[in-house]
């Protein structure tokens, strides 16, 4: 039965491709942050650090700036507000319900629908922006992964080949990596 399902399962969770590089696994967070600094000093900018929770020390070692997802959300919010307000004005003008001879386009009640539309679209674009920037969904693995990364270990993946690989391997070992896995 399982064999019959294998093609579908492979489609949902494709087997990992062959990677070339070094994966260092760390228990201590400060060791991992030191290793990141050392690797960056050695010219390795293309690092991928896996951890069960975000660590400020590692973020600082990587010199990560703030996420740009806020701008995507801002655009979504402005679009939502404009769309909501336009919808209210258009519907009132297109299907006029005159009450007590008052203005058709009465802004105070329109603010509520405009506001809700702003939050709705900002929420949706926030989600889409986050998915795009985090490169999710990641159906096929982009780097080797270890289940311990969702428990208590920090992993540093350095894609490299040839002599560079040996250098990275030594560097990771020198930074007290608990385990250094070489992918060839």
């Amino acid at each position, binding site marked *: 039965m399982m064999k019959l*399902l294998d093609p*579908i*399962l492979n489609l*949902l969770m494709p087997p990992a491709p062959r990677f070339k590089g070094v994966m260092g696994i760390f*228990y*201590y*967070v*400060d*060791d991992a942050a030191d290793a990141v600094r050392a690797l960056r000093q050695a010219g390795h900018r293309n*690092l991928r*650090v896996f951890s*069960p*929770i*975000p*660590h400020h020390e590692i973020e600082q070692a*990587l010199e990560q700036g703030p*996420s740009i*997802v*806020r701008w995507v959300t801002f655009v979504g919010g402005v679009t939502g507000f404009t769309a*909501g307000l336009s*919808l*209210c004005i258009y*519907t*009132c003008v*297109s*299907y006029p*319900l005159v*009450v007590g001879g008052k203005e058709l386009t*009465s802004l105070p*009640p329109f603010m*509520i*629908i405009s*506001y*809700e539309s702003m*939050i*709705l679209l*900002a*929420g*949706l674009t*926030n*989600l889409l*922006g*986050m*998915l795009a*920037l*985090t*490169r*999710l*969904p*990641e*159906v*096929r*693995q*982009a*780097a080797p*992964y270890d*289940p311990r*990364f969702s*428990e*208590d270990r920090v992993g540093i993946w350095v894609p490299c080949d040839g002599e560079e690989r040996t250098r990275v391997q030594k560097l990771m070992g020198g930074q007290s990596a608990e385990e250094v896995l070489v992918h060839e």
Partner: protein
Amino acid sequence: MSVTALERNPEVPDISQKQLNDDVLSMVSRPGKIWWAVFILDLLILAVALIAVRNLIFRGWGVSGFMRPVMWAVDITNFVFWVGIAHCGTLVSAVLFLFRSHFRRAVYRVAEAMTVFGVLTAAMFPAIHTGRPWFDYWLFPYPNQRGLWTNPRSPLEWDVFAVNTYLTVSSIFFLVGLIPDIAAQRDRAKNKIIKAVLHLASFGWSGANYQWKHYYGAYLFFAAMATPLVFSVHSVVSWDFAMALNPGWHSTLFAPYFVAGAIFSGVALVINLLIGIRKAYKLEHIVTMEHMEKLAKLVLMTSTMVGYSYLTEFFMAWYGPNKYERDLFWFRATGHYWWAFWIMFSCNVVFPLTLWFKPLRRNLVFLFILCLFVNVGMWFERFVIIVTTLARSFSPATWVHYKMSFTEVCLIVGSFAWFFMFFLIFIRVLPAFSIAEIKETLPVPRRRNGS
């Protein structure tokens, strides 16, 4: 006084990071006999309620106790009650997130799940109440050949936008929060099919540095957007009433009064759910007594806000010039529905005063029973607001005595069965506590300066 050792924060579980994964994910296992017994009982109750809904739809609203002008009665009472319940989840997850209130980490997932299932329950009632639910799409503005549009100046239309936005944003917020935890669940899964499904549900999350960076960037914005949303949605729900000129409804007090009431009832239900879960799954070390006590303090605080609103309403009716308002409030406390009013007042204002005492806040049996009373009281609050005003409007010719029918009782009980059906499935399928967020409170392993 000299301090010799650092005291452990009682809100932080005394376990390792790996142990946290073990404990929380142990909940997601094959269900036991008790779970099945409760689930089947729940489905049976739901089946009875569905028969009642079928009757309502095919035979019409005549089978209910509705009589003109009391046409909102139980349906809208249930709607407001469940939207209120839903609000607590966003308060705990978003508002307390922005305030960096750390005790939320252990309890917010349960509260958020309650939000999503609460809105799903609430949204059913206006949908059924239209009488012809197959035409519910008329509530939304869409181009049609007759050139008809919905009225954006109507509070009922505001509600359509508010509730749907709330459902969408709170569902996204809930699901986004689950991503790292589903990935942890995936890493433990042995069965290939379950692993593949969880891989898909976690979007292939790996916890890479760039993922955390944008994830928390986005999470902060979800919280920042959900915070004003939670206040706006229940304000809009209150304006369903406050925009009308009826005595007892037409008040600017309604928005803050409803929001406080919503948080009050929601936190009470969270306490009930958490007491059950932490006991059943032996998770007392994750949801500690400190968490429960802080939630109890929230109940006490919101109870005093609700009590203040009740008294303000009476004061304004007495002090103000509106004779109809004065008569209505006198009727509420002493008229045909006096019992509902006094259930409301005692459950929401008098009984919670016991929470001023620390031993009672930390007594879980007492807290559980008190929170049940709070929810009974909050249901009656909405009943009193809706039914007394409609049954006693301006003209004595329209005064009626509304009586609830068996069909409506089925709807009330069924709404709880519907809510608990989702909740029971949730605690068996997904991590009911946020592993990633609780882990952030645990000591991080460091070589220098220890943990």
